[in-house]
């Protein structure tokens, strides 16, 4: 058959097709990967930015709470509060203090023979 010249077109080389396909896939894959990676970087950056904002809010809120707490601990503020609530708190007289003596230190055990 081949001799009469009717089927003279060269057979398609499978290897070539596969090579072309793989090369295309590689190029397309690399492109898609690049875009996917860029998207991921962008998304992570957005998340990071949002978390930084949240962190700043928490930091500011924490500062405010810390300040309020310190205001409440002021000796003057405490005195005023005691007066306001009419708790009648005064420093205890020495006779009203009960002291527990420290236990005496134990003598070291005698050394063995």
């Amino acid at each position, binding site marked *: 058959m081949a001799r009469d010249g009717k089927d003279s077109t060269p057979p398609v080389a499978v290897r070539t097709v596969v090579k072309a396909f793989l090369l295309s896939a590689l190029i397309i894959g690399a492109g898609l990967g690049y875009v996917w990676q860029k998207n991921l970087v962008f998304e992570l950056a957005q998340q990071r930015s949002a978390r930084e904002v949240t962190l700043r809010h928490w930091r500011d809120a924490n500062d405010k709470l*810390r300040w309020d707490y310190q205001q409440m601990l002021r000796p003057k503020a405490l005195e005023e509060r005691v007066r306001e609530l009419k708790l009648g708190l005064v420093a205890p007289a020495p006779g009203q203090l009960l002291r527990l003596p420290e236990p005496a230190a134990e003598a070291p055990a005698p050394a063995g023979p």
Partner: protein
Amino acid sequence: MSNPVQIRRRWLIVILLGMAYSGLAYRLVDLQVLRRANLQAEVWTNTHRILQLEPRRGDIVDSRGNVLATSTFVKTVCADPALLGDHAAEVAHRIAPLLDMNEAELGLKLTPRPHEREDGQTVTNRFVVLKHKVPPDVWQAVHDSMTNFPSHIVDRKPTKAEKAFYHGLRYSAIFVDPSDDQLRSYPNGHLASHILGYVGDGERKDSHGTYHDIKGLEGIEAMLDQRMSGTRGWRVTERDGYRRERVEYREENVEPRDGLHVGLTLDLVIQGILESALAEAKDKEKPAYISGMVMRPKTGEILAMCSLPDFDPNHMEHTTADQLRNRLIMDYHEPGSTFKIVVIAGALNENLVHLTDHINCENGHFLYAGRILHDSSPHGDLTVEGVLMKSSNIGAAKIGMIMERPRLDRYMRDFGFGAPTSILLPHETPGLMPRNWTKDSIVQIPMGQGVSVTSLQMMMAMGALANKGVLMRPLLVDRLLDAGGNVVTRFPPVAARQVVSEATAKLMVEALKTVVTKEGTAVRAAMENYTVAGKTGTAQKVPYAAHKWYASFAGFFPADNPEVCIYIAMDEPHDPAGLHQGGQVCAPVFKQVAEKVASYLNIKPDRGMDAPAPAAGPAPVAGQGKTPQPIKTAMLR
């Protein structure tokens, strides 16, 4: 076949295209090669930004961790007047109450100001600072107010340009400086202001811009400024046309390192007790100023320190120089009779006299080197102990004469006079020691004249007697902590020197106990449940004829195992009853402070109902020589 005309036309097109491409090629080479460096730098400047990341300034805390000074991050609110159009007045009306600013003044700031650039073009200003140190919640309110700015176009659909204008007005016209600023706050206001000091605002410029800076100017804030400031970080980042950061293009991001926290030996409660007592006494005695200190004699730890008038470091705008003066270390004065402890301790230590030796006090008048010395009340023979108890000038002068100049001079210096105590506070003065002794110096100095000392020196000298003769260095800062609260550096107590022997110190304590008795000069300092040892001082101020007084009392308790040493001083007391002596005006303040401090620190009484029975074996040691614990007993009515 092409005719010649067609061929010419083709050539013309080829030449024109060639010229065009050559032009483009030249432009390309010009931009990409010849001007590459300049243009690259310009692009970088336009798109990039270097942000300084501020570290948080360290806190100052007391011995129990209560915050005495802290920092909060705040904003600097700015505006771009060019984006406001003709809405400047309206914007000022909206945000002036939120920023607590005058509306007219704000309106003026927001009004665009045209100015001519170097190239002759007239432009309006694009940046103006509206207010520094704005708390984050206030900025949030301003931001919310601006984003809700109403559109004035209601009857028709706004054009694209109008939409862009309102977007810029709402979101970009008022903005905050991306670099954080800090606000230094002192939760307790006046409390311990002379120790804490204050900070000042400054600006720091570098090649990338101008930044806010706070710097310690006085007190601990100034002395440990570098340790508390921390280390700045930075961020190199890109931004878009709306000034928003493009986080994904950050090039460098170095986090700041926060400053160290400073742990003081002060106790907030004891400081409060001292300041309340001093304020009360100031109202009553009307002195020019009043000051006081509380110290642990065994370690030199300063538990409280106050000089009135003082200031509120949160509001420095109306503070006077008088208020800023920490008189305990910056002023020196003739100490008066408290100085007798130096001469008598020295004489006892040198075995020149004994407590029981008799001194003739000349019935209150003693002529020496052409000068007549007086006692406040006449005494005949007094023991050395009696000289201290009655505070006899003549007795002290005669002991000084026995000591002679070299010994007296040495003991004065050994007790720490004439040199700074090395307390960690600025502007400490060493006091004045006599350089040229005159004939009467030897009788003048033992009674506290002719020598000038600071209150802190006097207190440390008294502390040395309470501490078995060992002079301690005053300790104000005992630790530095990192941001996580871990101790980075600890400063242990430091003994300066053994001034007198332990035996001499013990004898002095016995003698000083008698001062706080009915026969002594400071019976008003006596406490019900503790034995107090101390010494009064009433110095006439120079010129002596003016009859102005400097009254003081330095004492400690429990006398035989001292936990606390307290010093109280008043300059020119104007008591309604005419009282001016240390034992009259300062001793009661000492007692008031001492009783509250004893109760707060749970110091075991050494006499009265709770005192240990004699010969009852080893005495309980609660509250003695240990870190004080809060009172665990229920507070009763």
